[in-house]
């Protein structure tokens, strides 16, 4: 009943192309997250699905029908707006029940559904407050409430949890998922929080500059990003990238060289490795690794359950001190907080072989994810 399809959808503002030739098919009942950098076109895409903005080109299908000419009210969607957009002249109850009242629901049904939502959203006792008397997070929850009291075919949610604290967020995540499952509605969810995208979604759509980069289940995006952008965008802290070349099954860069069997490209490539896939060479927990980088420990940042280590790699041929520190040529390693390290110590680290990604440097597209385990032994 609620599949959503975008076909060649483009949205141009006078001088900006906010959404560029977007093609996405979302199955009925699926939960899809949109992620991407600020300003990449997530909200715009949502608005086009909702019928609030008319696409410049292309068509939107809901449940197989072209809805381009259908007004929002007939698309049977519920939406949580990024800017919250509570009706300032209505109290919380009226805000939440607006859609139901418009559709002429029975008083009793309205009361019941609002009560349910209030419980879910932990908004007890606020029903007769005006929006101006709420805290930021409370407003956002009311905005969510306005959407979930209804029984639409599609949920569109634009950063619905941006103002909530971790605990409430986790709670709301489960609740939203529960509601979505219970109602069996399709959900499109915009978030800047990857953890949210990862834990909640059936699939994640990564958008950049108005273009869809990848749409795939969360782990696939994490483990097999289609291109450098996705690889760098998904995962926090971000993947480390090393520029280099591949020739004769061997990857060579300024700071590391390693065997890359089975990679038949012989051009410039970018090697990607996530912080948690880098290990000190002596870490007994490390899996099969490859390559060695000698590096200077720059900054150590303990954040509770793990510890970030910023490394300044020494090029094979230049002393550590001489090299400037830029993003590209520093390495971030994530280790367990027990690891014993000191700032300015010089250590050697190595990469988890199965977690190395190689990308075509020119196009940015992925070449391989995980190097094959070859007879060549690791250092």
């Amino acid at each position, binding site marked *: 009943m609620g599949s959503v399809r975008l076909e060649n959808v483009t949205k141009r503002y006078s001088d900006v192309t906010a959404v560029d030739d977007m093609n996405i098919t979302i199955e009925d009942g699926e939960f899809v997250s949109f992620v991407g950098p600020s300003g990449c076109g997530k909200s715009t895409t949502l608005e086009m699905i909702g019928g*609030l903005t008319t696409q410049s080109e292309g068509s939107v299908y809901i449940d197989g029908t072209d809805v381009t000419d259908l007004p*929002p009210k007939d698309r049977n969607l519920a939406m949580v707006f990024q800017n919250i957009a509570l009706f300032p002249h209505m109290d919380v109850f009226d805000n939440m029940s607006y859609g139901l009242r418009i559709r002429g629901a029975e008083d009793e049904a309205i009361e019941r559904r609002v009560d349910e939502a209030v419980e879910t959203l932990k908004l007890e006792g606020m029903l007769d407050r005006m929006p101006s008397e709420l805290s930021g997070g409370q407003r956002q929850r009311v905005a969510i409430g306005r959407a979930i009291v209804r029984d639409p075919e599609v949920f569109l949610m634009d950063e619905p949890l941006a103002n909530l604290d971790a605990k409430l967020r986790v709670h709301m995540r489960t609740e939203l998922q529960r509601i979505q499952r219970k109602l069996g509605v399709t959900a499109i969810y915009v978030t800047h929080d990857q953890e949210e995208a990862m834990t909640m979604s059936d699939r994640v759509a990564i958008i950049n500059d108005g273009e869809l980069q990848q749409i795939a289940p969360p782990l696939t995006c994490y483990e097999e990003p289609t291109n450098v952008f996705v690889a760098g965008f998904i995962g926090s802290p971000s993947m480390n990238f090393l520029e280099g070349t591949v020739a004769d099954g061997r990857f060579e860069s300024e700071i590391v060289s390693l065997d890359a069997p089975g990679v038949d490209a012989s051009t410039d490539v970018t090697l990607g490795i996530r912080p948690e896939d880098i290990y000190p060479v002596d870490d007994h927990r490390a899996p099969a690794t490859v390559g060695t980088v000698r590096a200077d420990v720059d900054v150590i940042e303990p954040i509770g359950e793990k510890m970030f280590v910023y490394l300044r790699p020494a090029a094979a041929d230049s002393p550590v001190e001489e090299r400037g520190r830029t993003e590209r040529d520093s390495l971030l390693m994530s280790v367990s907080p027990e690891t014993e390290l000191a700032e300015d110590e010089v250590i050697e680290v190595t990469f988890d072989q199965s977690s190395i990604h190689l990308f075509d440097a020119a196009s940015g597209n992925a070449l391989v994810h995980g190097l094959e385990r070859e007879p060549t032994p690791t250092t």
Partner: protein
Amino acid sequence: MSDATSDTESVIDRTAHRAIRDPDTVYRWLTYAGIGFFLTVSLFPFYWLVVLALTPNRAIADMGVVPKGFNPGAFLEVFEVVPFHLYMLNSVIIASLSTIIVLTVGSIAGYVFGRYDFPGRTPLLLGILVISYFPPVAFLIPLFRLFTGQVTLIGLESPELYNTPWGIVMPLSAITMPLIIFLLTTFYRQIPDGLEDAARIEGSTRIGALRRVIVPLSAPGVATAGILSFIIVYNEFFFSYLMVNGTVEGWSPVLHGIFAFQGSQQVAYNLMAAASIIGVIPMALLVMIAQERIVSGLTQGALKE
């Protein structure tokens, strides 16, 4: 003596000092001064009306600022000489009808002009504005013929609206319209898009969103527009004068009631003044009620980006 001087000096000094340090105090005093000034200016002529009303007509000469004599009976006489209350009732009905029409039609137009960009928007808006350029008399001849059934449109004789409230209501609605449309256009323009979007997603039609979200949110504008059109119509001279025959039964408005005290040679100034004071009461009530709406329409900080 010199002590006193230095004292005053230091008082001035201190005040000046305080003023510089705490400009808020200055603003507060400025505000009070302003309130005083404007209240005096606004109310003095009303006081003068009271003075006139209380002074017996015969004694209205060389008037100072106090009544010459005390004749509160003028306020009753107003109703004895003419059925002034009925004229007022006519006026209130006429003004209410016009206000309803103007607000309904004008809201929709203001909404459209304020929130949509469409081909022809600017020319149309200008076209509407141009209507207000013309003195009322420019409309009078054709409208009079129209309302007295002398114009046939597609074979149908125009309805006789002369001596009915509509004879005043219709033209005045039209003439008030440009102002109201412009006013509401600016107000509707200021309402954030997001709210209308939210309402439409929730299942409102565009009209529904207008009625339930946009109109209440532009409450200050709409209330102002309402007051304006009501007062404009209530006080209008030309059509109110010429589209009815001056009888209470002929829906003549308060203007005729006031004129009833103005003979061709002798003017009952005291009764006119008394009638004016009485005639303004509905306005005062309206302003009071409507400005409440202005204030309560928006709880503070309501409009969010």
